[in-house]
């Protein structure tokens, strides 16, 4: 299987461990990821606050780069980028006037039929869902994980075309296939504060704390995420949570690909398990039994 790959800005910096672990997991499953040459930022959390045309033009400019690669399916792992791509494509399909403006702005046509894919979607479908258990080399059944989907993978469902918006199960199915137990909990899709990370950190500390507390009460040892922004908010704000609420949550936050990779026995250095501000390595020390 061969796909174009759009890592997005975060996966080249604060979310490097997502990039590295995704590539390793894909490699194990014989998925070929070809990074788009000269991709640019999708506009992320900022462009839509400033201009609808800008927020649509940036993803569409990236999708046009696919044509030089003779590929029309692109893997977009960052939930923020995934959402911006899906929304932009949906907007040009449904708003002819906007489409004309976008074509003018990017000096290029609009790639309306490029397939924008989140890795969880293909991992949770056949043939890959059945491939995952065959690659498992470590027994992680002692680990209980809360799968956190955040806002942007599932909403709005008619645009993202990803799972059930109010209670998604895709990531749970993928991690269970890798032999990891996942918990039922109520904060799967409740906002972590998103882009307020830098502009209104007090909001992020409150919302992210609620999420961690709920995962704890559901008995989770760790939270799995699919978004670098969710990761940053949940992982890096735990010291602030201690300051505000008295106790340090000590909740490891991992990308779902790091968990899959660990069960495939990919080395912790490639999975970059040491990159997180809240210690995630000791989590594996007790349970990492080889099968």
């Amino acid at each position, binding site marked *: 299987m061969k796909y174009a790959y759009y890592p997005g*800005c*975060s996966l*080249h*910096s*604060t979310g*490097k461990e997502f990039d590295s672990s995704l590539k390793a997991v894909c490699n194990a499953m014989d998925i070929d990821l070809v990074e788009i040459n*000269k*991709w*640019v*930022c999708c*506009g*992320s*959390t*900022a*462009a*839509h*606050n*400033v*201009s*609808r*045309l*800008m927020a649509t*033009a*940036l993803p569409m*400019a990236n999708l046009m780069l696919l044509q030089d690669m003779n590929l029309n399916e692109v893997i977009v792992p960052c939930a923020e980028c995934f959402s911006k791509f899906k929304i932009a494509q949906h907007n040009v399909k449904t*708003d002819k006037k*906007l489409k004309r*403006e976008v074509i*003018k*702005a*990017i*000096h290029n046509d609009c790639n309306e039929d490029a397939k924008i894919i989140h890795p969880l979607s293909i991992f949770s479908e056949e043939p890959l869902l059945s491939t995952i258990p065959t690659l498992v080399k470590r027994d992680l059944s002692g680990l209980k994980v809360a799968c956190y989907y955040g*806002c*942007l993978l599932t*909403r*709005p*469902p008619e645009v993202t075309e990803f799972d059930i*918006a109010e209670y998604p199960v895709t990531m749970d199915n993928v991690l269970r296939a890798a032999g990891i137990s996942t918990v039922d909990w109520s904060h799967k*899709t*409740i*906002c972590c*504060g*998103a*882009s*307020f990370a*830098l*502009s*209104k*950190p007090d*909001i992020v500390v409150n*919302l992210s704390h609620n999420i961690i507390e709920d995962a704890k009460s559901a008995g989770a040892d760790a939270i799995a995420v699919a978004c670098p922004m969710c990761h940053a908010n949940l992982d*890096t*704000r735990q*010291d*602030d949570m201690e300051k505000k609420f008295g106790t340090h949550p000590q909740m490891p936050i991992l990308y779902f690909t790091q968990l899959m990779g660990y069960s495939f026995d990919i080395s912790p250095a490639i999975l970059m398990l*040491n*990159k*997180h*501000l809240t210690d995630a390595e000791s989590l594996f020390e007790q349970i990492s039994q080889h099968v």
Partner: protein
Amino acid sequence: MNTDEVIQIKEKSFSFTDTVAAVGGIDVSFCYQCGKCATGCPLVHEMDLTPTQLIHAVQLGLKDTVYNSKTMWLCASCLTCSTRCPQKVDIAEVMDTVKILIQREKKKATVPSVLKFSKSFIDNLKLFGRLYELGMIAELKLRTLNFTQDLAMGIKMLKKHKFNLFPGISGSREVRKILSQVRKQEKA
């Protein structure tokens, strides 16, 4: 004072409600004030108008009430409201549209740090084509003059080599071209 003021765009006059429809492509008249958007909003406790009230104000053309509110700046774009609205009103898009109109009319942002973040982000893109996080943070700190906030966290992140110390410039020309073309088209 709250009036249904007339606004000029592209030499045509629109009332505030129609402007929101024209710029954002959303017709708020479908809203029947059920309150569902406010009930599910994770930020409603921080807002002065609930999302339901903000939509009502837009329906009534109460431009000043809307512009003076902090609500749209405190919206995290989580899209819960737009997903759940029984009338398919894209409330989150209304929030974006109001923010865009405020900037176009050069009016004041009631929560300046949020707009400063977006501006720092876009400036960064113009320079580098991709987000260079350290550069953006530095610019945001200059814009907000708040150097101590998050310092401890930043140092921890640096130690973990979370940031790239130097920016790349791949695609920066392309982005500059698109952004300046967007600006031109929006002024036309």
